[in-house]
C-alpha cells in the first residue's frame, strides 16, 4: 500500500497498519496473559484478593526483592494426583484420537468419493453438529446413557438385559462423549485432504494389478498423511485439556487435568497451583501445536 514518504520513514506503512491491530490484540490478550500465568505460578498462595502474593517486593527504599517460589511445581510432582491426572489425560486424548481416526477416516473417504451433489449434503451433515452447542450435545448423552435412559430402556424392552447397565459416569461414557464431540474436527481436515487427491492414481495401481486394499494402503493412506495429522492434532490437543465432557459424563473419579485445573481455581481458590498446572500442560502441548502449524503450512503449500 502507498503511504506518504515521511510516514514510511518511521516504519509506518499501509501494510503495517493492516496487521497492527490484530497483532497487538493477540499480543495483549493471548501472549501477555501466558507471561502472567508463568509469573503467578511462582508466587505464594495468600488469603487475599487476588489470592496470591506479589513476586516483587520493595525492601527498604531502594531495593527490590524478587521472590521466586518453586513450591507449586514441587507440589505438582510430589502429590501423585497431578501426575496421574496428566498421564490419564494424555492417555484418554490419545485413545479418543485413534477412535476418531478409525471412525472418521472411512466417513471422510466416503464423502470425498461421492457425487458432488451428495457430497455437499453429507458435508453439511458433518458440519451441522459442530454448530450446535457442545454442551447440549454432551448433555444428550446423559439422557442416552443413564440408568433409566434411552439405551437401557431399549435393551430391557428387547429382552437383551434384565438389569440396567451402568454406563453414565464411567470412563466409557467419557470416551463416547469425547469421540462424539470431536469427530467433526477429524472428518473435516481429512475430507479437505482426500478431496484434492488424484483418484486416477488408484485406477493406475489397479490396472497394474494392485488389489484395492493394496492400492489403498500404498497410495491413499500415505497421500492423506497430512490430513490425518491435522485432524489428529485438532482432536488430541484440546482433548488433553478438556473440562466439560469429563465433568458431565466422567463421574467423580474421572481424573483429567483440565478438571483438576478448574477445581484448583474455582473450588480451592489456589490460583498459583492452577497456574503451575496450566504451565505444565502448555509445556506438554506446545510441541504438538508447533507440529500442527508445520503440517498446516505444508498442506497450504501443497494446495498452491
Amino acid at each position, binding site marked *: 500500500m502507498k503511504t506518504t514518504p515521511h510516514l514510511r520513514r518511521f516504519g509506518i506503512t499501509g501494510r503495517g497498519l493492516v496487521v497492527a491491530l490484530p497483532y497487538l490484540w493477540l499480543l495483549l490478550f493471548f501472549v501477555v496473559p501466558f507471561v502472567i500465568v508463568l509469573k503467578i505460578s511462582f508466587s505464594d498462595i495468600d488469603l487475599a484478593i487476588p489470592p496470591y502474593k506479589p513476586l516483587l517486593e520493595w525492601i527498604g527504599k531502594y531495593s527490590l526483592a524478587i521472590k521466586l517460589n518453586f513450591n507449586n511445581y514441587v507440589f505438582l510432582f510430589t502429590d501423585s494426583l497431578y501426575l496421574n491426572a496428566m498421564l490419564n489425560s494424555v492417555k484418554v486424548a490419545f485413545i479418543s484420537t485413534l477412535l476418531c481416526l478409525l471412525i472418521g477416516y472411512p*466417513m471422510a473417504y466416503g464423502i470425498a468419493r461421492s457425487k458432488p451433489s451428495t457430497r455437499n449434503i453429507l458435508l453439511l451433515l458433518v458440519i451441522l453438529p459442530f*454448530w450446535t452447542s457442545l454442551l447440549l450435545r454432551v448433555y444428550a448423552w446423559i439422557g442416552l446413557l443413564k440408568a433409566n435412559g434411552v439405551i437401557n430402556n431399549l435393551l430391557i424392552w428387547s429382552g437383551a438385559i434384565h438389569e440396567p447397565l451402568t454406563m453414565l459416569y464411567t470412563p466409557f461414557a467419557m470416551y463416547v462423549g469425547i469421540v462424539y464431540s470431536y469427530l467433526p474436527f477429524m472428518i473435516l481436515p481429512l475430507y479437505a485432504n482426500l478431496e484434492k487427491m488424484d483418484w486416477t492414481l488408484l485406477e493406475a495401481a489397479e490396472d497394474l494389478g494392485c488389489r484395492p486394499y493394496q492400492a489403498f494402503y500404498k497410495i491413499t493412506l500415505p497421500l492423506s498423511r497430512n490430513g490425518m495429522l491435522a485432524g489428529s492434532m485438532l482432536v488430541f490437543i484440546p482433548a488433553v485439556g478438556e473440562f466439560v465432557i469429563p465433568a458431565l459424563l466422567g463421574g467423580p473419579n474421572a481424573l483429567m487435568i483440565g478438571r483438576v485445573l478448574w477445581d484448583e481455581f474455582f473450588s480451592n481458590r489456589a490460583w498459583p497451583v*492452577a497456574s503451575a498446572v496450566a504451565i505444565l500442560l502448555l509445556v506438554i502441548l506446545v510441541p504438538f501445536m508447533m507440529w500442527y502449524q508445520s503440517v498446516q503450512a505444508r498442506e497450504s503449500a501443497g494446495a498452491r
Partner: protein
Amino acid sequence: MNYRRSYFIVTCIAFGFAFLYVPILSMVVFSFNASKLVTVWDSANSPTLKWYYSLLHNEEILDAAWISLKVAVINASGSVILGTLAGFGLGRFTKFRGRFMLNAMTTAPLVMPEVITGLSLLLLFVALEQTIGWPAGRGITTMTIGHMTFSMAYVTVVVQSRLASFDRALEEAAMDLGARPLKVFFVITLPIILPAILSGWLLAFTLSWDDLVISSFTSGPGSSTLPMVVFSKVRLGVSPEINVLATLTIGVVTLMIVGVSFWMARASRLEKAAA
C-alpha cells in the same frame, strides 16, 4: 472420475451419521415428553408443549440468554474486523516482519485448551485492574474480550482460505487500471470475500453463544451466560427444559446453515457463470 463406493464405506458412513445424529434427535423427541423423568416416555400425556411454555417463562434462562446474545453479537462484529485484517495480512502480504508470529498467534487459539486460555485471560484482567484500574471488575466487557481473542482466530482461517482460492488477477487488473490499494480492497476484494466474512461472523457468534469455560473464568457476578446456567442445571441431571432449549437451538442452527449454504451455492454458481 468414478463415484464407486464399497459396501464397507457406505456402512461406515451410515453408522457414523447415526452416531452423530441419534443423540441430537433423541433430545428433540423427548422435548415433547410430558414426564419429568425426561427419558421415560409418558404416552398418556405426550406429545406436549408444556416444557416449551415453562422454558419461555423461565426468568433465569431468559436473562442469561439476553446476556449471551449481547456478548455474542459484539464478539462476532469485533472478531470479524480483527479476523479479516489478520486473514488479509496473512493471505496477501507474503513477507512482513512478524508474519510468523501472527500466524502462530492465530493458529494456537484454535487448539489451545479452553481452561488455559480462560485462566490466563482472567489473570491478565486481574493484573490490569491492579496496575491501571481497568477493567474495573469483570463482566460483559471482559467476557467479550475473551471471546474475541479465540473467535478472531477462526475468522482469520475462514477469510484466509477464501483469499487463497480466488483469482488474484482481478486485483492486479484493478491496480493496473490505476486503482489505489484501498480502493481495490473495497471494490474488488471485499465483495468477493463477503461470504467468508459472513460465515466468519456466524461462526464467531456461535462460538461465543456456546462458550462455557472462557465465560466462567472471565465473567463476574450477575453476568451468567446461557451455557453457564445450563451447565449448573445439567450437573444435577437431565431436565426437560434443557431438551426444549436444545431443540430450539438445533432448529435455529439448521435453518441458518441450510439458508447460508443455499446462498453460498448460488453465489458460487453465479461466479462460475460469470467466469
